[in-house]
């Protein structure tokens, strides 16, 4: 189906990516994957997605950085971004706090692990 909306998934754990991919594909979306922030930006440049699901904790370029870059570029600023954050990361590492999430320009955020229906509802909401 050519009219499927395109979702870009970015996370450094391949199994996690695969799991989210199954969920999102099952919701009727076309999914493309990338494994760190930099790769995510490359993928966006190649083919503009309709929505991005972006993990916060990643090597090379983390989710916050990637998000800020995308929002700073007028070409990509309009793409809705859902940030994924592990609750425990916020507790054990001082780098990511609740405030960071609020201050980021991402449209929404969700804690990991992601409950399938909640994620699909959120994607649906931002693609309206």
């Amino acid at each position, binding site marked *: 189906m050519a009219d499927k909306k395109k979702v870009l998934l970015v996370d450094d*754990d391949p*199994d*996690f990516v695969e*799991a989210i991919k199954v969920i999102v594909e099952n919701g009727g979306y076309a999914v493309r994957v990338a*494994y760190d922030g930099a790769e995510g930006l490359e993928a966006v440049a190649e083919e503009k997605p309709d929505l991005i699901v972006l993990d916060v904790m990643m*090597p090379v370029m983390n989710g916050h950085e990637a998000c800020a870059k995308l929002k700073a570029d007028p070409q990509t600023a309009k793409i809705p971004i859902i940030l994924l954050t592990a609750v425990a990361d916020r507790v054990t590492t001082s780098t990511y706090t609740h405030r960071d999430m609020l201050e980021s320009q991402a449209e929404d955020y969700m804690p990991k692990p992601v409950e399938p229906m909640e994620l699909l509802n959120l994607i649906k909401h931002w693609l309206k």
Partner: protein
Amino acid sequence: MDAIRILIVDDEKVIRDGVERALAGKDYVITKAESGERGIEMIRTAGCDILLLDLMMPGIDGFAVLSWVKENQPEIEVIVITGFATVSKAVSAMKQGAFDFVGKPFTPDYIRIVVGKAVGKLRLQAEAEQLREERTLSLAAINQEQSRLKTVFGCMVEAVIITDREGVVVHHNPAAINILEIQTDPVVGKPLAASIRDETAVEMVFEAIDGSQVVTREFAPGSISRRYLRAHCSPVRSSGGGILGSVTVFEDISTHKEIDRMKSDFVAMVAHELKAPLASIEQMIYALQVDCKYEALHSCNALHKRMIVRTRDLLQLIENLLNLSKLESGTVIFRLEPVQGHEILADIIDIVTPQVQSKGLKLEYKPCPHDWWINVDYDHLRTAFLNIISNAVKYTPEGGRIEIATSLAGGQACLVVRDSGIGIGKDDLPHIFDRFFRVKGKATRHITGSGLGLALVKSVVEAHNGYIDVQSEPGVGTAFSLHFPLAEVDAAAMEKMAAVE
């Protein structure tokens, strides 16, 4: 003082018994001898404190006994017994050192008085002696105590500072200068604030003095000195109860703090390493809640397989962690036995062959032409070798090659595992034996591992007096070399082995 021992030496039984009766009822131990010879013998064997001695005896007479006593046991008090007709003899006996004399016939009272006087003298002497001993002892003790305190004070690792009630330093030990990094000279006679430029430390001392209580504080590096210090400050009271000053002991707890920090870091790291795979597994379980039909079926099957792999990896990680902690705490007992190097390697090559074939790798084994033996714990060493060789398989892309070679030189066996794998970057190379270190990048993304394997290998190799070395170039390959001292297998055993083969 023990009971006074009295010996009566007289050739007349009447006198002996009479004296004994007169002295009965007192706390004396009385023995009797019927002649001078017997008397001396009894003094020699049993000893006595007071000797009642008849001067006129057949055989050895009283004078001879007296002079023997004065020569050999001068501490015995001698009372001579003599007839009135021979008082002059008594006088010369006194001149020879007798304590007193009793003229015959005598009344029991008189005997008691004379003996009582001798006893009194003995008691006084004993008391004087005891006092003298005590005095000598306590003087020695005081001298010793002072030098002991000085030694303890000087040798103490902790810094000790003693101040008066105004906070002026009256004493400190050498460690104080060192630990507190004091640059003031002299320290003694100046307020504490002149030497320790940390207000809280000075406040602590006054808090102890004014509040008459022990105060404990910790000082982070940079406050008093570069070390992490813990201080206990106690007020010093006079016997009357007034505060005289303070004693503060500073303990260097930098090492404790460092170990504490390392422990926390390690726990955080372990928690993260355990959490990450679990989070992935949990997400995969969530994903499988969707309908696994039609086109999703293939992905669902893949997720199932990955969940099994990740769970197994997690278990392996915990296993490795336990092994490593056992190795590092030194509680592992290695059962050393001569192991044939070729045997252990052939076994491992069998294990990895299926993986090697499925990845289309070329594995070449170049054993040295001689049999070689190492004295090792078979299971631990097999795990270590397996770890190195499976790493080579894991990190070598399809179609690559792995070479396993052994050689002997200088009493050492050397195993080299060389692969044409992805290699390790210069920045990562120094860290590959660190716990939980994993090279992160595109090439390693789909390779799972605990990051503990090489840390374990290193521990095992070093526990066997061996060493491990690594050379690597990104994109070209990696070579691990493991060296072990060769076992000296005696010739007889070798022949026996050869015969069996």
